[in-house]
């Protein structure tokens, strides 16, 4: 194109290094680089497991088992380090996306590394506890990958360019308008409206938050009560009903927002504590193995 000023420079500068032309998600990062690497690793283990003859049979205590165990333990420690990497804003060049990509695929490869390390000898002991915890961590992580891949779109669609603060502010605005509009109502009509005004949009607990169902919602209750009521002046009641409907819609949006955000975050409350439990069990497993050498 006829342009006076060439934006591209021959030498990549610091900004250019992180500048991309288009979005590329963590799963597709660098043409599925980490998927290929971890897939290759799994394949190598499965094939070598079949080819190498360990006597009397494959188990965690053979040289082959130790190798896999060491790889697995180191991987677990490295995968745990993501939590630190994510929060430590050092100034050198690194990409959290690349880390996440590697975390996901290498984490999945642990299924093979860990399981093949056991030589399929599972029982009721601390060793199998470590393996089970590892599988649970991986499972919760798998859930995380699935929601990360599917929910952001819904989050974006639901919020329609509104921020969480704006959603809250909108509800507060309806409350203020309701407060004024409800003045002419009779006491029996006012009571449910007041209850709706007192409602905390965050109330309801974890189940309501994650399911998005609020059966005791005071706004819906007020809406039902006022639609059926015949006691106040019809015009005033209609206005309040209209406002309650708007507030209900605003609440629904906020609740849907909180639900999706909750679903995107809840697994971390399983994934992370289980990881620490895993590291504890893993330590016990390693120490006991060396103790009974």
């Amino acid at each position: 194109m006829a342009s006076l000023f060439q934006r591209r420079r021959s030498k990549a500068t610091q900004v250019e290094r992180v500048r991309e032309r288009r979005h590329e998600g963590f799963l597709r990062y660098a043409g599925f680089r980490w998927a290929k690497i971890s897939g290759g690793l799994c394949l190598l283990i499965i094939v070598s497991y079949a080819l190498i003859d360990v006597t009397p049979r494959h188990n965690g205590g053979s040289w082959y088992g130790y190798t896999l165990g060491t790889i697995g333990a180191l991987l677990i420690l490295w995968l745990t380090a993501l939590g630190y990497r994510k929060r430590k804003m050092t100034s050198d060049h690194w990409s959290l996306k690349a880390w996440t990509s590697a975390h996901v695929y290498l984490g999945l490869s642990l299924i093979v590394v860990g399981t093949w390390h056991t030589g399929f000898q599972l029982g009721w002991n601390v060793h199998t506890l470590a393996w089970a915890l590892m599988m649970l961590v991986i499972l919760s992580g798998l859930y995380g990958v699935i929601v990360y891949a599917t929910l952001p779109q819904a989050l974006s669609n639901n919020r329609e360019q509104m921020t969480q603060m704006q959603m809250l502010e909108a509800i507060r605005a309806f409350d203020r308008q309701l407060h004024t509009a409800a003045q002419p109502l009779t006491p029996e009509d006012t009571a449910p409206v007041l209850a709706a005004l007192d409602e905390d949009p965050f109330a309801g607990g974890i189940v309501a938050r994650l399911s998005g169902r609020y059966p005791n919602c005071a706004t819906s209750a007020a809406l039902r009560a006022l639609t059926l009521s015949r006691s106040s002046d019809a015009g005033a009641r209609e206005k309040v009903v209209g406002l309650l409907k708007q507030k209900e819609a605003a609440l629904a949006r906020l609740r849907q927002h909180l639900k999706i955000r909750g679903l995107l975050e809840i697994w971390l409350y399983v994934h992370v504590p289980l990881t620490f439990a895993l590291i504890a069990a893993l330590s016990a497993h390693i120490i006991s193995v060396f103790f009974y050498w």
Partner: protein
Amino acid sequence: MSEPVKVAIIGSGPAGLSAASRAGQLGLSHILLEKTDHLSDTIFKYQKGKRVLATPERLDLRSDCRFAEGAREYILGNWDEDAANNKVNIAYHADVTEVTGAKGAFAIKTAKGDVYTAENIVLAIGTQGNPNRMRCEGADLPHIIYQVDDPEDFKDKHITVVGSGDAGIENALGVAEEALENTVTILNRSKDFARAKAKNVSDMMEAGENGLMSIRTETQPKKVEPGWLMLETPDGDVKIECDVIVARLGSVAPRGFVESMGIEFTGPDREAFPKLSPTFESTVPGIFVIGALAGYPLIKHCMNQGYDVVEFINGNSGLTPADEKDLAAIFASLPQKKSVSEWLEYLRTRVSIFADVSPLQMREFMLDSKVAFYRKGDVVFEKGEPGSSLFAIADGFAEVEVGPDFTVPIEQGSIFGEVGLISGRKRGATIRAGADGIFVEVSRTAALKLMASVPGAKRAINRISLERQLLQIFKGGLTVEDLGPVVDTAEVERVPAGKVVLTEGEQGDDVYVIRSGSMVVEKDIGGKPIFLRYLPAGSFFGEMGVLSGQPRNATVKAAVGSEVIKLTGESFRKMLAARPQVRAATEAAVAERAQMNSFIESRKATYSSAVDLYSDTASFIMKEGLGEATDALLIDENLCVGCDNCEKACADSHEGLSRLDREAGKTFAHLHVPTSCRHCEHPHCMADCPPNVIHRGPDGEVFMETGCIGCGNCMRNCPYGVIRMEAAPPEKPSLLRWLLTGFGPGPGEPSPKWTKKKLGDEKPKKIAVKCDMCKGISGGPACVRACPTGAAIRVSPEEFLSIARLDEDTD
């Protein structure tokens, strides 16, 4: 009529007070006229406790009044003492309305009817002007105020804001904060809010919808009573409760008053200043202009000028200005030894654009400039470097590398680097010194000021820049002589955002060069305008029509407010006929574009929805103002999980404050433009920075160096709301400590509560905070590095909208 005095000083700000103090010290008969009942009204009206900074640091203070960085109260207290110690005669409530007479016997009339006679007048009235007053019945009641110093002064009050320009809306929004529990009403005389910025209007409407204020249009105050206000509305008169009236009815700029005395300005533009001699004398002998009105907004400058001007009036012609030392330092590195005034004269006579510049202006430009000696062959700047300064050749000559082994000389007296100055883009060619010589580098701000105040300089710079721009575009064998006829018939046109320059299907053969801003090219395909390409400044369009004689084959419209240079088809054709190489180059460009057009058309036929999405996305991006961006943050909401790690990383990479708001901003087809700096080509924030600390860095980033005085101009000027006024929070405990113990704030911006607790009573100064693209951080922008899913990327619009994107989408 009072005793005649030697000098009357109008305005008691830093400049006027310093002048009066000098007169007091010298024992000159004088009078200081102040329209209010206190000194220095502008600073008096600052918020309580606001820190006033003493920039520029390198400039020495020369005044009989003290001045050092400190809180507003401290500075005003000092000045009250200094005024008394220096035996300054002050007349308060002396609002000057008319000045008549001539040097030796001026008569100064005030609003109260007093007349002062003076031999000389020093005008130090600043640029704020007088606020327009309310005119209805009861307009003199004391609960009418014309300024809101601190919204927190008002709690649980009925407040009516009259006037709905930006000032009125901002005040109304300030006092309507929910926590203050005020009942706020804003009145507007007409139906719409044409005078205010769109952002302010939408914020106000939102506040209105949320019940935070009531907005009354087509309403005027009719009668003011204590506690009540009668309004004239379309539905008849209405009486509302009202404890405070904030009247923001605009102000009368002081220019009219100044001109009424016969003082000439450098030009009709808003940026023009009164014409002044080296001793600050205006075109009316005996009237001297100093301070902000003379174009010096910084307090130290003002105070020094106050001192100097009285010395001049007192006959001290040997006084060297306070900046002499700084100027001497600027010239110190040059091989020849000359005095400062000799150097200034040398430059003024040898550089064409300085010819009309007054010695006083010369001093100022040089303070913002550099002078350097270059050996033959030294590189002045490289192609592709960012830079917006202007170079002038005082001695020797420069060589432009137009192509490999092909250079064009620029002669002594001329300038170079003007493209960066005008378009804000990177340097277009490498420049070397052609012989040992002296080049002056004028900073962008100084150069713009020069163009605004010296019309001759503006014309010269514009013509040269046009020639150069054309030479660059049609490189190879073209000379300045060839361009003569083209440049003579060329016109510069301003195009507002969205305006169509060329319409598809119309006949026409004019060629356009984009001087600043950017354009989008669209073509009607299947009844729908399809985005073809984005043209940044420095591109040209319309050349297909000249070569083929066919009607325009696409529509070109401005993406942002732009300037285009229109060249007539006839002169362009003549030039092409004279230079076959140029014709060949132009034809090649035409062929390339035609190929791209037909590519998109072919895709449209087979992948209609992909092309539509590409086109709609482009339109959205342009609508969001990214047409003037050089580097913007874009979030793919198909990937964004809302973890806000980008904001946290931003805060942790800087002084604990995030420069971006991820969630805010518009979204289209899951493409989200968050509130974050786009590093505009012509940064709006740079336009009015008193200490001049906003610059463009080597990676094209627009950043702020230290020295911000916290005035908030940049924040108000930014149309995208990306600048915050905020004080840096205290140091957080280390990340490991937080991870292990859970104490203290974690990653990201600490909560205001924590900051407040940590700081106690200390109130640090709020300064402007904006994205610097992580300048100086080797890893690059933290927001992108810290995104776990790849949702956040930084892009330049032309790369993001490149044809490759469509290609990938449809493959």
